């Protein structure tokens, strides 16, 4: 199992109820979308946060990634809604 830091922002953070956590991920989770599906099954608050995976964006080690991106060797994976900066 790989240990990785997960970070949550905006309403993803609010729904899950915490800004970050460190989890051991099963080896069979290889992509961002697989990780979202696995997280969504962890409990009600996660299911609520990830109810619509299409609006969830992700970053690995401070870089934007796609749903099919590999999570191999990731140290930090962040999940958040579409951005509204600027």
């Amino acid at each position, binding site marked *: 199992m790989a240990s990785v830091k997960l*970070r949550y*922002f*905006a*309403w993803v953070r609010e729904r899950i109820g915490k800004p970050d956590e460190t989890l051991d991920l099963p080896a069979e989770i*290889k*992509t961002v979308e697989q990780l979202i599906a696995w997280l969504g099954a962890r409990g009600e608050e996660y299911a609520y946060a990830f109810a619509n995976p299409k609006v969830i964006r992700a*970053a*690995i080690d*401070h*870089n*934007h*990634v*796609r749903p*099919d*991106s*590999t*999570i*191999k060797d990731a140290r930090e994976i*962040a999940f*958040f*809604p*579409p*951005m*509204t*900066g*600027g």
Partner: protein
Amino acid sequence: MTATVRIQREPFDAAAESAKLTRGRTDIGAVVTFSGICRGDENGRPIAALTLEHYPGMAEAEIERHVAEAQARWPLAGVTVIHRHGRIEPGEDIVLVVTASSHRDAAFAAAEFLMDYLKTHAPFWKQVEQAGNKSWVEPKRADDAAAGRWSTPLRGRDAAE
């Protein structure tokens, strides 16, 4: 090229930042300064304030990537981007983009490019305070369309095998 990227809580002084960029330079013929300001309304209703959440570390890295992209596309003598976070009231500045070049076309284009990318790729999220409630601002389709004009694919990791 001089590049400055800052993420900060405090207000900034646009004129001072622009002056810093041009001081002592004789190669700059054009400076474009854009300020994004907190309006007093959202969706037609008055707001008390905006609160900007951000991803420390990634916000700087992402904007630095945008600046590097701008530098690759246009001949720029200098770029400054300052983005605030925290609670911001109507009338206050949110974001500053200053671009300097020998001629105006690069300065104008780079400033617009940087704003279009900031709006869609920089990890910030706005909450509005209206009538005692806080709610998250939805992204605008027009912003995605604007960023799409510049046709740069999102770089990043490969698909998993």
